[in-house]
């Protein structure tokens, strides 16, 4: 369970991310006066949320003397932190402030589910080994990257469809150029794949050191993980080959992330030894 200070920090984090989400909607202007541009205020709120979130993570880890990836609650909180960090790094590199309006609703929902639904579940009693913690953290970082890859894929397909339909509605005007979405899709894929590779490698090393998991290759989650790794490898190869520039790779990005999502939730929810 959380200490009062941790509860307060996590509550503030959820408040900041939710306010950033609301700021992107018309609801905000109905209730509160406009403070600045929508994206500027929303990003300031996400930034404030990240600061509080980071303080919470540090405090939580120090209190428990463990990396914050022991259970699904912690994994979701860490995944959220990775995603916001990646969002800010991308904003520095590509001025992608617009991305916040797509990330914040999912982030807020993730945190609310984690806070109210998963807190205290599947508590691990024995301390986690460093290699296992590194494996899980890298997996979550890769999932964060694949999440942004997934969002850029959806945005690419939406924009491409609007362009083909010659629609001039707000959706087309608000979305960034196809070239930028394609570039972000590729860059996130290029970053995520090596991270996932290292994560799987560390996981394999860890499991080989544990005689009780001798038949680990038979575990469905591991088989699906390796399947996802191969799938993303093929997607990356196709994209780098360039002949498939366009809608094929974004479609595959969406499929790939759907597999990962099922795997991510499934691993923890199943209560198997892998969780």
């Amino acid at each position, binding site marked *: 369970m959380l200490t009062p200070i941790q509860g307060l920090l996590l509550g503030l984090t959820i408040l900041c991310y939710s306010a950033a989400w609301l700021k992107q909607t018309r609801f905000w202007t109905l209730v509160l006066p406009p403070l600045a541009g929508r994206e500027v205020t929303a990003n300031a709120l996400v930034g404030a949320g990240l600061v509080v979130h980071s303080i919470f993570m540090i405090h939580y880890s120090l209190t428990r003397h463990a990396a914050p990836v022991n259970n699904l609650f912690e994994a979701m909180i860490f995944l959220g932190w990775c995603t916001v960090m990646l969002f800010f790094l991308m904003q520095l590199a590509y001025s992608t402030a617009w991305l916040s309006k797509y990330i914040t609703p999912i982030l807020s929902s993730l945190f609310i589910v984690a806070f109210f639904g998963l807190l205290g579940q599947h508590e691990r009693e024995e301390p986690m080994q460093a290699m296992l913690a590194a494996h899980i953290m890298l997996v979550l970082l890769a999932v964060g990257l694949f999440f942004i890859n997934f969002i850029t894929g959806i945005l690419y397909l939406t924009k491409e469809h609007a362009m083909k339909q010659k629609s001039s509605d707000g959706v087309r005007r608000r979305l960034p150029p196809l070239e930028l979405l394609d*570039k972000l899709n590729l860059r996130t894929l290029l970053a995520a794949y090596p991270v996932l590779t290292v994560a799987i490698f560390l996981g394999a090393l860890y499991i080989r050191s544990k005689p009780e998991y001798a038949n680990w290759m038979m575990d469905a989650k591991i088989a699906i993980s390796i399947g996802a790794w191969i799938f993303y490898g093929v997607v990356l190869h196709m994209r780098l080959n*360039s*002949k498939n*520039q366009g809608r094929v790779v974004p479609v595959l990005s969406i499929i790939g992330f759907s597999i990962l999502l099922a795997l991510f939730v499934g691993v923890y929810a199943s209560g198997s030894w892998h969780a």
Partner: protein
Amino acid sequence: MRRLTVTGISHRTAPIELRERLAFSPREVNATLARLVQSGMFQECVILSTCNRVEIYGLSAGDGPVADADVIAFLAGHHGIATDAIDAHLYHYDHQDAIAHLFKVCCGLDSMVLGETQILAQTKQAFAVSLENETTGKYLNALFQRAFAVAKQAHTQTAISAAKLSVASVAVETAGDVFSEFSDKTLLLIGAGETGLLALTHFRERGVRKIIVTNRGYENARAAAERYQAAAVPMENLRDYLPQADIVVAAVNAEAYLVDPEWVRAAMKARRNHPVFMLDLSVPRALHPEIAELPNVFLYDVDDLQGAVSRNIEMRQREAELCMAMIEDQVQRFLSETERWSVEPVIGELHQRMESIRDAEMQRLWKRLEAAGQIDPRLREEIEQATRRMTGKLLHDPSVRLRAAAENGHGFQVVDVVRRLFLPDAPPAAGPPGDSDEAPRA
């Protein structure tokens, strides 16, 4: 009471022939500004002369507004035109309407292209010329600075100038939905006519550097290529150059399609499926419509873009309504502020009067006390400060009420009463804002 007026003509009221005759050259503006002020017609004035409007903004030198007939006679005399010939085309706005008109002009709401921003730069230039000629004072400085602020607010807080209104600019904007960077893109222009070159100019402004021009008459292609630092290629080789092009602009008179889907399919294969934006400005069309169905090819024709232009015009009209509400609010604020200026001199005089009474009484007191014995300098300073605070507090509420009365439009009546009661020896009340010469220059 001195008043602001604006007299002028614009594209809404006069044909271009008349606007040309009434326009002021930059050199004429300097001399005319000086004449208008020296003649005693205006205390402050600004002349705005552009291709679409000629306007004289002036604050009257005497009480009441300057009669429109006087300004019309001045304009007619200056340009050697009969008064009757221009009378029907001129408009004349007084004070509040004149302020609102200036704000509308600066926001581009009175422009031929609704919401355009060029007029703002031209108004700033006109104001700068008047500043150099020292024909502006406190009132017009404040008015024009406020107008520029209102225009900035309108352009940033509404989408009045966001949506593009020409086919060529909408085309470039649409290409911007595909490409985020233009400097590394290659543009292939099919047809070196006026329409194509106009589109080319817009793409160049956006950053396109590599340009290939082709035309049925090779000489025209070469001439255009020289002008735009492009490469000219014969029309017969068009197919060979398609794979290089990220942007294809066709603006040519063709009886049949010049580019068919097979050519583009082959080009896409050669360019490893990199996206292409194709713009067909030709009527009849030069690019086969089935090209639009190919993956990663985005083909837009005149109808597609014209639809966007119409929607953009509607959008600007909707935004103009928001701007009007903003302008009405700002006009009222400006009027309140300038009304408040009218009571500042009398408030200052009241403070001076009180201070002089206080000072005289204190001097009398110090003399008496000095005669009686030595006074502690610290005690003397304390007493001085206490009496200053007392007069300040006594005058605080009346000052606030005077300003409030001025904002409600009763400034001059209240000032008159205050003068009669407290400042009987002071000269009578002067006009509004622009009266003071203490004006800070903008």
